[in-house]
């Protein structure tokens, strides 16, 4: 009988050991250093990755784009959204030890938006902040989740101090070293340190990832396909970056029909299929389809013949197209648009923005942080320098507002592109927020002790 029991026992033991080891492998561990590389400046205002790790906002978005409390635990509006009150989370301290007070938060928020704040008045009342506006501010909580409203405490000439999961340990030769904040109000992050090295080219980032010198690197949308082919571990967000052509309504393009001709001439499918290799989605709407559900109502097909008809009245001087924050892909997109316009009989040239302070066309890349359609529209229109409509509370009003604006042809949406990261095998539990920001606080390093 013992012999007959022995085999099952051994097998069971083996199974249990394997299961235990698997469980041990998947459980997050504290410790380790996470090495991140970016092309841009990690301290770039407003959404440099180091800033997002060091500072918190009053509100925040989760990975589904749902608005959650941040430094504010609750909020309510009065007077038809002309007045908002946010109650702060108690017991939160800045990294320098100072308590987070409403006054400090008010100072930080006021500095963030200077004269372009959506509110006209901000005051501390008890442990709360009161926002007052001449116009209604229905999207204020969602707006406060944006990177530009992260709360920082500037004390003398020292580095600004935040309340985020990481604090600044040192900055050496462009490498920002962050240390875990053990007192973080959401709990200590798993990794001990995060090193963020900025201004690294993509080629160098991928090379460092491949040789183990980096744990997390950027993957532009146009290289997602190649990254997958190169067998990198890639995590991509929903389409969060809007590639849009901003069209001036003055000068050579004061005529509506000319602007419409431009809109009809642009070939989104070529941009989507070839340049971005089917990553993201072509769009003729300002808001992504997954936020509104009505993006399909805006046609994306080009009509060169109609564009040709509408271009009557175009002058002989070439239209000037500049690029906001140019890179290789946007340069290619701009040149392709110029070719599209020439097919429609419109003469255009790509020129550096530095040499052309006022341009007829500007190719922009707008990062959509808001998880809410209305807030998203406000965010995009604000970025385009346009007036934010009063009423966008319901889907119909939102659609009307967007449609009315797009019919002025002062903005021609082209593509929605995802944000993506490639990461090494030792990185665990990496997730992205709705706007593609990596949630580093929840990341652990495999093999950390």
């Amino acid at each position, binding site marked *: 009988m013992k012999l007959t029991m022995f085999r099952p026992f051994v097998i069971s033991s083996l199974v249990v050991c394997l299961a235990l080891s698997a469980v041990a492998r998947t459980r997050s561990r504290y410790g380790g250093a996470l090495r991140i590389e970016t092309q841009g400046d990690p301290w770039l205002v407003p959404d440099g990755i180091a800033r997002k790790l060091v500072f918190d906002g009053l509100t925040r978005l989760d990975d589904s784009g749902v608005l959650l409390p941040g430094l504010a635990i609750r909020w309510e509006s009065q007077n038809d959204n002309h007045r908002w009150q946010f109650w702060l989370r108690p017991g939160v301290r800045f990294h320098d030890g100072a308590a987070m007070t409403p006054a400090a938060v008010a100072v930080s928020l006021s500095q963030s938006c200077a004269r372009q704040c959506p509110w006209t008045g901000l005051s501390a009342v008890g442990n709360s902040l009161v926002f007052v506006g001449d116009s209604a501010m229905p999207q204020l909580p969602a707006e406060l989740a944006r990177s530009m409203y992260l709360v920082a405490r500037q004390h003398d000439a020292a580095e600004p101090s935040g309340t985020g999961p990481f604090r600044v340990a040192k900055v050496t030769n462009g490498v920002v070293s962050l240390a875990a904040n053990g007192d973080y109000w959401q709990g200590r992050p798993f990794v001990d340190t995060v090193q963020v090295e900025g201004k690294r080219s993509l080629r160098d980032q991928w090379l460092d990832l491949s040789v183990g010198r980096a744990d997390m690197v950027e993957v532009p949308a146009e290289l997602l396909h190649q990254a997958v082919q190169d067998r990198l571990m890639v995590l991509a967000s929903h389409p969060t970056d809007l590639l849009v052509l901003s069209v001036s309504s003055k000068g050579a393009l004061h005529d509506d029909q000319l602007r419409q001709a431009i809109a009809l001439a642009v070939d989104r499918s070529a941009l989507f299929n*070839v340049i971005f290799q089917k990553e993201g989605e072509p769009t003729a709407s300002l808001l992504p389809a997954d936020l509104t559900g009505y993006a399909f109502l805006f046609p994306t097909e080009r009509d060169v013949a109609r564009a040709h008809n509408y271009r009557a009245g175009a002058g002989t001087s070439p239209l000037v197209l500049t690029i906001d924050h140019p890179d290789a892909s946007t340069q290619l997109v701009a*040149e392709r648009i110029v070719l599209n316009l020439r097919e429609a009989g419109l003469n255009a040239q790509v020129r550096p923005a530095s040499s052309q302070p006022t341009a007829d066309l500007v190719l922009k890349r707008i990062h959509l942080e808001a998880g809410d359609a209305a807030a998203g529209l406000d965010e995009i229109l604000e970025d385009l320098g346009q007036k934010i409509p009063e009423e966008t509370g319901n889907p119909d009003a939102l659609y009307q507002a967007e449609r009315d604006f797009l019919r002025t042809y002062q903005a021609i949406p082209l593509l929605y592109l995802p944000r993506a990261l490639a990461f090494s095998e030792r990185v665990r539990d990496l997730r992205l927020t709705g706007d593609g920001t990596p949630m580093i606080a929840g990341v652990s390093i495999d093999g950390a002790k």
Partner: protein
Amino acid sequence: MNLRQKMLAMVALTVMVTVAAVGWTVSLRVRRVFEKIDRERTADFVGQFRRAYQRRADAVALSLDRMAGSEPLMRIAFDLGHGGDPAPYLNRAAALAQEYQLDFLEIVSSDGSIVSSAQWPARFGYKEAAVTGANRMPFLKEEVLPDGSTQIGLFAVHAVRGGEKTVYLVGGTRLDREFLMSLPALAGTQIFLYRSFNAGFDAHGLVGVKGNVGNAAPYQSLINQSRASGQDSNAVVYPSGNLEDSVDVTAIPLKAADGTVMAVLIVANSRRGMVEVQQHIKAIAYGVAGGGILFAIAASLWIAARVSRPIEQLARAAGEVADGRWETRVSVGSHDEVGMLANSFNRMTSQLVEQRERLVQAERVAAWRELARRLAHELNNPLFPLQLTVENLVRSRHLPQEQCDEIFAESAATLMAEIANLKTIVARFSDFSKMPKPQESNLDVREVMQRVLVLFSPTLDQREQPITLKTQIAPDPLMVSADAELLHRALSNLVLNAIDAMPDGGTLTAVAARKGDVVQISISDTGTGLTPEECQRLFTPYYTTKQHGTGLGLAIVQSVVADHHGTITVESIQGSGATFVIELPALPIASEARA
């Protein structure tokens, strides 16, 4: 121009003409030699260029060939040939172009659509027409770039078989400054490349090894000519105002496959060497000409000393002899022909002087003979009646006293008359022999003339055959420096002669006027006139055409006129009278005023 100046001019001209001819000939020869060298050098360079061009074309074709055979491209061709998505290959052309050192590269699908373009990545999906010339010889092509500029490149097309479909590689290299730098150029040779895509001339289209040529205008006409004709063209171009900077330019058109001229290669050989040699020759010629002129001056001075000066001396001496100074001599400084000429001249003047002396002597003898003859004739006239009268007196001794007394009285009267006649004759001779020196003073000739005419006017009216007096005397003073009395006597003699020439009456005309710097007095008659022989001898003492008279009147007039530094001439037409003209030096006008 005197002899010395003529000789100077002749020698200088000879030297200059000779030097100019030699200089021009040498300069022409030098230019031809340099031009020949330039042509050879240009031809050599053109040959090298064509070889370099072909090498570059071959290099492009070889690069494409190697690229086509590489594994990455074969995978691409296979993928595309089997209908694969071309999107992933969007950026491949740029990397391949860099790897194979091409300036232009396009990967084109079988339907002619661009899959990837190194020079214009955004042109994916557009058609590339050059694929129709797959696997043909390399060719020139225009390539438009994203910034709107256009470049010319040397292209080749290579077809890559990938399954059922073909993928094309269209690659090339730029024809630009770097291409020029790769060409072998000798010192003094410049190479430019002209590229323009307009019909007109674009000054910014001319580039050299150092970049854009700043001043392209001098090359414009040659470039236009080459573009229009499609043939090599030559000309001399002057890029700046300096002759040394001129260049011999050959324009070589570079054509596309369809024959259109896409670019023009300019080969410019400096003419500095030739120009400098020519200028050197010119400078030497000027120097030699200048030296020649100096030599001519020196030679002329030497010749002057040896030849022209003696001749000038001879000429001056001849002039002096012509003026009457027969005793003039010239110095004999050599024993050559000039010396012989001088000797001959001196002999001639000596002979002239001797002959004049002999002549003077002969004239003196003749004059003495004439005087003796005249004296004998004049004296003989009264002597014969004297002789007869004395003989009558001797004979009357034998006659009665009364007859003797009568004859004595008649004879005494006759003797007295003839003796008075003799005394007159002697007095005239004495007057002529001792003509007084003139006592000159400033006088108005008109006054002397008036006195003479007033003296003789009554005589003219009282004659049986009256003589009409006409006067033409100038209203202004006619001042001369003269002896009034002697001048009166001279004018009186002339008036008397004129009266004597008109026994049957006539017209006596007296004229006095100023002619320049002389006062001219003329006395004219309308008598029978004089023969030319008479005119010549008229002023000879004792020569007379009258039946009676001593013949001294005109001699006295001539003597008076000569003593007053004047001249007297006679003009006569036989049968129409004669005119005696006296010219005396007139006093200056200011002197006349003082007078």
